[in-house]
């Protein structure tokens, strides 16, 4: 008996070890600034990126405000103490020795992204997708830029955008997520490094999926990316985000901000497959994913949908939100969050209805296994002027094992009598009947569980673009390996 448990544990450990396929590191000369955070560091980052004066001011204001704030403690998370002075805030893997001014990308970096399945050579890439690849603090390459610019679409790293389109960036940066918004937003506003900038002009449908791939590589650094997407009147864009990190013993910090502005009748789809390193089976290491994502539906009849598949990170603290300001705007939030081993996730959304006839839908599926904690936390707020606002929320939790936890903390705040707000939630384990049915037909338990879980998450995965959906489905299977038996 005892022996078999030991064997089982070994098996689980084996699986746990093989399950994170992206845990390698890249040996590349990286320019890392000294650890620590103070005003000089903020100035140094700004200087390294050759930023204009107003942006430095913006950073310094955010930094000074950050100093006055304290870390939020309301989430259902056991957060390790983060020492903000022991992290390096800027790491540039593309930096070469001086004089080496060739435009070419280090072949090591090319290889890294190839390994991750993100080809940076345009001829090799799937024609349907343009990629902005970000490693540590710097955007390595953005593909298909020329092709997109024919249509007037701007897709580049945010540092380039600051240089080339300062008016646009200045107008929208911080307009959705103010640096005063929360602790991590202030930190990000002070030290943000790279990220993507997307601008879709009036009446343009973006012909391909835009995508950003984030990778943390260097040791003891944090990634503070900043993404800004603006969809002008009648524009449409579908945007994907993927992320991985090497396996490290210590926690790595990832504090990002994503801002989306949607104008009249425009539509933005934002999909994330988050696969940061979740830590090992003992709960050691892993990425602390502390992200502020918010979309402003500024125009009338604008639409925004967030789809996320959260499988990685030791700690996920993430609430992609929508402010439904324009009359008739519609927002959607689809989420699958999987936690295993010692992972903790506190994720959900905020739907803030301000305009008339606005509509929002929230579908959240939580799956917890191992010793993990998985919480849904959401706010639906209907303002006084938001006549005929409509919200439907459904969040389900699936428990695989008796040592994990699944929680729901929905908040509803309704100030308008014409609003209809509905919320329902269920928590249960995998149905014995379904499992039995599969077993009866010769499907091993582990596969059966995978099958049932995939079926359970289908509502959300169906919302993902095709390539991502396949990826997400595989990820779900891998994340849950070793949880049954």
């Amino acid at each position, binding site marked *: 008996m005892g022996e078999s448990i030991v064997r089982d544990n070994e098996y689980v450990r084996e699986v746990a070890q093989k399950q994170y396929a992206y845990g390698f590191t890249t040996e590349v000369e990286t320019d890392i600034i000294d650890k620590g955070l103070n005003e000089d560091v903020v100035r140094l980052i700004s200087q390294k990126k050759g930023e204009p004066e107003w942006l430095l001011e913006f950073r310094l204001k955010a930094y000074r405000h950050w100093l006055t704030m304290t870390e939020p403690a*309301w989430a*259902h998370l056991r957060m390790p103490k983060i020492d903000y002075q022991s992290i390096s805030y800027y790491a540039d893997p593309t930096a070469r020795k001086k004089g080496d001014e060739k435009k070419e990308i280090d072949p090591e970096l090319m290889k890294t992204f190839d390994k991750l399945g993100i080809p940076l050579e345009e001829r090799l890439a799937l024609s349907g997708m343009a990629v902005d690849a970000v490693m540590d603090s710097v955007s390595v390459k953005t593909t298909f830029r020329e092709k997109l610019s024919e249509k007037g679409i701007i897709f580049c790293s945010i540092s380039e955008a600051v240089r080339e389109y300062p008016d646009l960036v200045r107008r929208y940066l911080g307009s959705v997520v103010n640096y005063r918004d929360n602790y991590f937003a202030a930190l990000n506003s002070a030290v943000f490094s790279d990220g993507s900038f997307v601008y879709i002009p009036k009446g343009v449908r973006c012909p391909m999926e835009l995508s950003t791939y984030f990778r943390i590589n260097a040791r003891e650094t944090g990634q503070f990316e900043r993404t800004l997407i603006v969809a002008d009147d009648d524009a449409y864009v579908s945007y994907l985000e993927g992320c991985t990190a090497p396996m490290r013993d210590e926690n790595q910090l990832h504090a990002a901000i994503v801002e989306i502005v949607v104008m009249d009748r425009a539509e933005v789809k934002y999909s994330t497959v988050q696969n940061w390193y979740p830590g090992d089976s003992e709960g050691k290491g892993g990425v602390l994913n502390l992200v502020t994502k918010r979309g402003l539906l500024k125009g009338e009849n604008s639409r925004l949908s967030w789809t996320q598949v959260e499988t990685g990170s030791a700690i996920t603290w993430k609430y992609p939100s929508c402010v439904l300001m324009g009359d008739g705007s519609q927002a959607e939030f689809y989420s699958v969050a999987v936690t295993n081993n010692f992972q903790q996730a506190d994720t959900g959304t905020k739907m803030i209805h301000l305009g008339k006839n606005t509509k929002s839908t929230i579908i959240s599926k939580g799956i917890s296994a191992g010793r993990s904690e998985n919480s849904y936390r959401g706010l639906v707020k*209907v303002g*006084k002027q938001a006549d005929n606002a409509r919200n439907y929320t459904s969040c389900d*939790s699936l*428990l*695989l*094992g*008796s*040592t*994990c*936890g*699944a*929680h*729901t*903390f*929905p*908040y*509803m*705040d*309704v*100030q*308008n*009598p*014409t*609003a*209809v*707000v*509905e*919320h*329902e*939630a*269920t*928590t*249960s*384990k995998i149905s014995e009947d379904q499992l039995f049915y599969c077993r009866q037909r010769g499907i091993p338990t582990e596969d059966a569980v995978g099958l049932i879980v995939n079926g359970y998450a289908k509502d959300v995965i169906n919302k993902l673009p095709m390539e991502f959906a396949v990826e997400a489905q595989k990820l779900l299977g891998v994340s849950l390996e070793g949880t049954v038996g």
Partner: protein
Amino acid sequence: MNALREKAYVDFQRQGFPTRKVEEYRYTDMEEVFAPDYGVNLQRVQFPVNPHDIFKCSVPNLSTSLYFMVNDLFHNSVMPKTQLPEGVVVGSLCQQALEHPELLQPYYGRLAKTEADSVTALNTMLAQDGLFIYIPKNVVVDKTIQVVNILRSDVDLMANRRVLIVLEQGAQAKVLFCDHAMDERSFLATQVCEVFVGENAHLELYDLEATHLQSRRVTNTYVRQQSYSTLNMCTITMHNGLTRNTLEVDLAGQYAETHVNGCVVADKQQHVDNNTLIRHSVPNCQSNELYKYVLDDSSVGAFAGKVLVVADAQKTVSNEVNANLCASPDARMYTQPMLEIYADDVKCSHGSTVGQLNEQALFYMRQRGISEAEARLLLKFAFVGEVIDSIKLETLRDRLHYLMEKRFRGELSHCEGCKVHN
């Protein structure tokens, strides 16, 4: 009682009044509640009052064993002889503590932890009297025990009541609380109520509040249920100023069952905040929760209900529903149904809605010649009807249906027939 006071004082000093920053109190500003300068009746001045002169309960055919609490004092003067089965105690907490310390001691202050909640700490520190109900083993009390809480004073007053209800193994009882305020004064009543439901015991607990706009009520109720016990509870707020009810039910024995229901009808500037926690500490328990709010004018409603299933509390079945009607642009509803689950073999669900009356149902009735006002009334009435139907006391249920209807018609500003308000 006094031993606990000191500890309560220390705990209260440490915690202070809860602010809106405290998650459990985010919808009610307690500092504001406690801010006015209330008198506390420390001298135990007897208020000259004869409850029987002023009180005639309007629930017809409800023959009850009637008791009065005036402010925080148990009124034990002339009482018609009420026949209670032998061994049953209903009386002043203070007096019983002197006469039967052995009955009280194992229970008093055991559930209401002063370190966990500052209102409990404050009450424990200041409470001087209250009510004690004790039902011995296997005794069935058929007659409903009705306790009428009357707030009466010539100056603004703060009353701190303490209630302890103990049902021993196999006991059965029905308890009805009615809260009334008499004088047009500002009142603040705090109440800490501890309820022990023994093995295989059955308790029905009804709490009806019909006070006035100047009264504030803060109650903390703690229940512990042993195996095979059932609790059927219903909290109804019809008239009030500001009410904050905290309810914690601990299912400590297997196969215990609890039904917690509540209904709130609020208009003007009424503020009602219900905060509930049902803790499934052992496997195989069942809990049901249903709260309904109808909000009009600029009233504020808040509901936060948490169901906590601890690790290994398998086979838990829990259902929680909160439905709300907002009838005016200024009414505001906050709702927060929460699940915190650490066991895997459970079936838990919660649902919550905020909305208006069903347009189709309204249209259907209008089509059949029912005036719009009447149709709306009927729908509202049916809406709260679900909660009232959960009351098992037939006469009380019928009466509440009647009272609710009148309440919605706006004809009723208090419990009719009961002269407390005249």
